[in-house]
């Protein structure tokens, strides 16, 4: 049964994942077990295949949707702290930058990993990022920039979050985007840097 669910996730069969998850619960399986050994094991293979160039964006999007369908079924039966993948992540593209492709790919990969992603969109000011951190209390805040001129906005935003006292022990700041380098990330005081969407998901799996 778990194998079937995993395969349905890998094939992006939304309806099938939904139905199989219901059946699995009816049979008395442990919801956390279904999450980890059926749904998540399926999406991990998807992530790997995407990284290997065997699956492509539209397919991963469908797999992520299928995963989401399963998780939605499980959620009422899972306690918050029982779900290791229910970390909350706020993401957005920084001020004066409207490029959302990279940010959306990260969102897709994180959703496909079962995280709850709050997408602030593009052209997000330092104040808006801080507001979201205050309101949603996420585990991670991720910011993206595509053009070199807006990399400075990233620096400003991190500074603002810190001056607002929001960068406490539990909050990690993740940055990324085509012109952003690991060196730059360190210089501006980010906790985490990811080269691409897959890397972002991998890093978060490690720390969450």
């Amino acid at each position, binding site marked *: 049964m778990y194998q079937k669910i995993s395969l349905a996730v890998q094939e992006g069969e939304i309806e099938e994942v939904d139905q199989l998850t219901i059946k699995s619960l009816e049979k008395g399986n442990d919801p956390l077990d279904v999450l980890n050994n059926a749904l998540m094991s399926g999406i991990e293979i998807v992530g790997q295949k995407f990284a290997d160039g065997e699956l492509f*964006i539209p397919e991963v999007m469908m797999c992520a949707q299928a995963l989401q369908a399963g998780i939605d079924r499980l959620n009422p039966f899972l306690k918050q702290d029982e779900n290791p993948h229910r970390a909350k992540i706020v993401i957005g593209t920084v001020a*004066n930058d*409207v490029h959302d492709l990279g940010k959306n790919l990260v969102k897709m990969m994180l959703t496909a990993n079962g995280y709850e992603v709050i997408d602030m969109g*593009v*052209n997000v000011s330092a104040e808006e990022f801080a507001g979201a951190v205050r309101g949603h209390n996420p585990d991670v805040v991720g910011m993206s920039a595509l053009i*070199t*001129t807006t990399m400075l906005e990233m620096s400003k935003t991190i500074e603002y979050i810190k001056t607002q006292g929001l960068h406490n022990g539990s909050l990690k700041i993740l940055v990324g985007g*085509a012109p952003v380098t690991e060196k730059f990330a360190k210089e501006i005081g980010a906790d985490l840097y990811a080269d691409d969407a897959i890397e972002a998901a991998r890093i978060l799996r490690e720390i969450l």
Partner: protein
Amino acid sequence: MCRVLIIGELINGSRTVVKQAVVEHDETVIRDLAVQQVEAGADYIDVNISVGQGDKEAEDMVWAIKLIEEVTTVPLAVDSANLQVMEAGLRARKNTVLVNSVSAEKHRMEPFLDLCAEYNAAAAALPIKDSGIPPAPEERLEICQLLAEKARDRNIPVENMYFDPLVLPLGVDTYNSYAAIETIKKLKKTIPGVKTTAGISNVSYGLPGRKLLNQVFLVLCMQAGLDGAILDPTDQGLMAAVKTTEVLLNKDKMCMNYLQAYRKGLLNN
């Protein structure tokens, strides 16, 4: 000539080879890229030197432009989102020039259009608002109309404004390519004398068979009324698609350009 204007995209700081050349001030790389693109048929050379060097960007832009103008008189597309860098580029260049790009974002629209007027430059204009890129062609058209109006206010001739429909990746949403094509059609239909341009390769991001996708997308955009294309002119498949589309749309009398391209061996994509 009715043919589509080719804006060569290879001098871009997001490419590793260019990034390194800018950082190390390697003159040969920049000059060679300019020559290669001109020889491949580029009508404009795009110059983007953004490599995250912040304050040095204006200086880098001037450096690159001077190098390129040593080897060609082909027009330049000064490519930066930074006003100071743009102005430095416009001041430094001698060749004909295009501002790449203006948008309807608050911090960008008026100052960039002012520059276009001051330096008598053409412009690529993007339908981007502070809230982002609207998906619907109708909304993109509205933003372009606003930009066209602001350009008119500054006496920038309509034929100097190249509106870009904005090409987002097909892989993320198959509506994206359709939206770009529809926006081109609407622009051509609605704004008299308007010109259009588009970055081609973005459409195929994240999908296999990118070369074929780019080629067919270019053909579709040309039929919709594309006047200019930002692309890699050394990609023979794309350039062959341009020639082939032109002859099939009756823009190459007696097939002369097409046959010339064939004799030069340029149709083997």
